[in-house]
């Protein structure tokens, strides 16, 4: 039964990816701003335009171009980027780890901020403390992440220069890494000096991304905790003599975290998709930063490659969240 459910899930994932491929292919072809026109230097004539269009295969009919591209994608060839003149897949895979690491650090910060606030909010439910947390959460959500970025640059970048302002790592450092997962590798290789440098670069962009997410986690988890707090086994725990905070952490948190897990999973995929502006602001060389250049330069193959990889991450994370939901929930595990 499990295998059959898993197969069905794979099919739906494939359909979703195919749908995304079709939509992005059509949308960017309808977009005005022909990439070839962008490359026209002074003096180029109409025949130059035609020649360049043929060079990049843009002279064929839309469906034909789509089939060629899709045929390539299936074999892992996402085509060549027009502006960066390199294979799209290696470009995208080269930049993806940076965005994944940034998003993960942002998620961790959001959990570190959001978790305790949710517990406190649940414990002090109905009081001014909870109202304060709600308003603070609303406030964090009302300011878009890039404006948080601006504030952070002014605070930690200029007034009290503690953290690095741009880039992902200090260029002068000699990086012994063999993959693009710098942060992970620096920890595995016990090079904590590099880890510190990386985190010093990632802290501000990650915090800018984390604040709205922390607000969402706080509000969702608090709501879920409050629903669990009045259940019988929690009342029983109080009678056993455990303090309110102990009761929340030992009894309520796990059962409350489960339903919020799926929602946080969805928010995490939005987070990855949403790093575009913050990466731009902090010149953090993730996928988002490259995506904006791709759109501005109308680099069609690169845009398609980036969007498809984002979609792939989206379906994979959702799969992971659903699997972990089944694992964590004993009833399903033994079901």
């Amino acid at each position, binding site marked *: 039964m499990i295998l059959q459910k898993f197969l069905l899930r794979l099919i739906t994932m494939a359909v979703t990816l195919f749908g995304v491929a079709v939509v992005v292919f059509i949308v960017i072809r309808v977009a*005005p*701003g*022909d*990439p070839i*026109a*962008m*490359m*026209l*230097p*002074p*003096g*180029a*004539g*109409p025949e*130059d*335009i035609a*020649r*360049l269009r043929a*060079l990049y295969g843009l002279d064929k009919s839309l469906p034909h171009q789509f089939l060629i591209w899709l045929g390539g994608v299936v074999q892992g060839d996402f085509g060549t980027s*027009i*502006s*960066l*003149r*390199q294979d799209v897949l290696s470009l995208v*895979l*080269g*930049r993806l*780890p940076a965005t994944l690491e940034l998003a993960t650090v942002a998620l961790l910060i959001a959990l570190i901020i959001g978790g305790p606030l949710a517990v406190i909010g649940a414990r002090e439910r109905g009081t001014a403390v909870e109202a304060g947390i709600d308003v603070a959460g609303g406030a964090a959500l009302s300011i878009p992440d890039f404006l948080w970025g*601006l504030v952070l*640059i*002014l605070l930690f*970048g*200029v007034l009290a*220069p503690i953290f690095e*302002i*741009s*880039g*992902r*790592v*200090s*260029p*002068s*450092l*000699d990086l012994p*890494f*063999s*993959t*693009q997962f710098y942060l992970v590798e620096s920890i595995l290789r016990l090079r904590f000096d590099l880890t510190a*440098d990386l985190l010093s670069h990632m802290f501000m962009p990650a915090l800018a991304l984390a604040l709205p997410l922390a607000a969402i986690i706080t509000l969702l988890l608090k709501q879920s905790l409050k629903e669990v707090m009045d259940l019988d086994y929690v009342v029983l725990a109080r009678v056993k003599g455990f303090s309110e905070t102990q009761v929340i952490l030992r009894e309520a948190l796990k059962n409350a975290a489960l339903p919020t897990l799926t929602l946080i999973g969805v928010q995490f995929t939005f987070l990855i998709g949403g790093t575009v502006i913050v990466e*731009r*602001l*902090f*010149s953090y*060389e993730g996928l988002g*930063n*490259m995506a904006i*250049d791709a759109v*501005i*330069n*109308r680099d069609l193959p690169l845009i398609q490659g980036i969007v498809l990889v984002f979609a792939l991450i989206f379906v994979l994370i959702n799969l992971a969240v659903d699997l972990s939901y089944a694992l964590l929930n004993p009833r399903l595990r033994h079901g």
Partner: protein
Amino acid sequence: MSWTPNRRHILGYGAAALGATAFGLPVSARAAGEELTIAYNVNLPSWDPTTGPSAVNPTVQGFYQSVFDQFIAQKPDLSFAPGLITEWGWSDDRSKIHMTVREGVTWHDGSPFTAEDVVWSLERAAKAETGNPIQFVWSKVGNFSIDGNRITGDVLSFEPTLFKWMSFLTGYVLPKAYYEKVGAEGFEAAPIGTGPYMVDKFERNAFLRLKANPNYWGGKPAFENVTIKFVTDAASRVAEVESGRSQVTLEIPYEEYDRLIAKDGLAGAATPISDIGMIFLNDIDVMTDRNVRQAAVMSIDKKLLVDRLLRGYGKPIDTLEAPEYAAFDDSIKVPYDPDKARALLAESGYSTDNPVKFKIQTTRGFKPKDYEMIQAIVGMWRKVGIEAEIEVYEIAKHFELRAADQLAPAAFYNWGNAIGDPTTSTGFAMYGPSPHSVWDGQDVIDMINPLWGEADEARRIDGWKAVSKHIAEQAYVIPLIQYVQPIVHAKGVNVVPHISGALLPALMTPA
């Protein structure tokens, strides 16, 4: 799907060939003379300076001029000097060209630089399939013959600006042997040239680490290691320099430029560069009426725009030729005269109550204060009876509309021209058939035609000055200002600005 391992960006050959020990500099120990960090405003899309969109992007030429050499070098004041070819010229009958190749020069991988490299580079640029955007110029010479370090070739069709192009876009010499060995992809991963700096480490959209080339024919540059951080956001660049993490930056808002150079420890250089802001006029609708065009030009107080919007950093211009250009004629003047503008509009039946209406297109945030300048101009026009509706579009859309000659009656654009030749400024901007021009006036076409092939340089320049005068009188275009490039640097570094707008680390020395 395992992540493909990252290609080793540290170039093995670099350390081996130079015998320099690969040393990891501790972050803090950045001695003044040793290490220079620049916060640059645009990313470097590709390492091939002769193909693709980046080849025609003036702002990235600084990277290329640090790693590669041009056939003919260009001094900071745009004048020409011997580069990889020390002597060049046409035969008397203009049927042949000859070049003498510099000797004793080596590529960064130690291999010798020879005449083959020059010929191979020229022939490669001339081939259509290479994708060189200036192919139409390079294809005008061919069948080269090499005799030691002297090259001769046939002129297939005379191009007076051929040698000027050798110091401008795509005019770079690439290593024939190395390129053919590693191919395009290999070259992108590990580019080598003959230039003052070698590529030590390159992380796309992140940073570029350059190491001084000890055997550079023009003398080893002052700074041993140069780090160029790609910081596309202006506020972040300001923060980089203000917090001392970078020593040099450029293209920041003029207000911030004033504020930073007032701080102790920071200084600045703001010199006019070969880039002008202008408004294209399209010969459609109301723009066919000369009164409207002249009124539009005369009602713009360019001085006030520069003083107020650009904090005084900029030079009003009346033709598409900047003072440093070959065909500049300061006798051509278009006065700021709003009353005359109202009179002209009245002649055509327009007034503040019954304003002439047209649309003006502009980018927003592509050039400093581009959108604000158009807003200010629309404000000035409103006072004399011109009602212009602003439409913002991306630079990509601008290029497409211009190539298809569908720009609005007025469209703001900036025009770079680092070789200062009239053909690549007034020429391509105003010559009807060129995909870059918008005005298709036959009178301008007839005046320009004979100049393309004019052999006598003096008569050619005078011809172009006449064209500029005619355009100014007929108000076929609205030249606005010559941009000034703001460069902020720590007091410990002195910077020599280049009028082409390229920021060259090789010209920087510790103060």
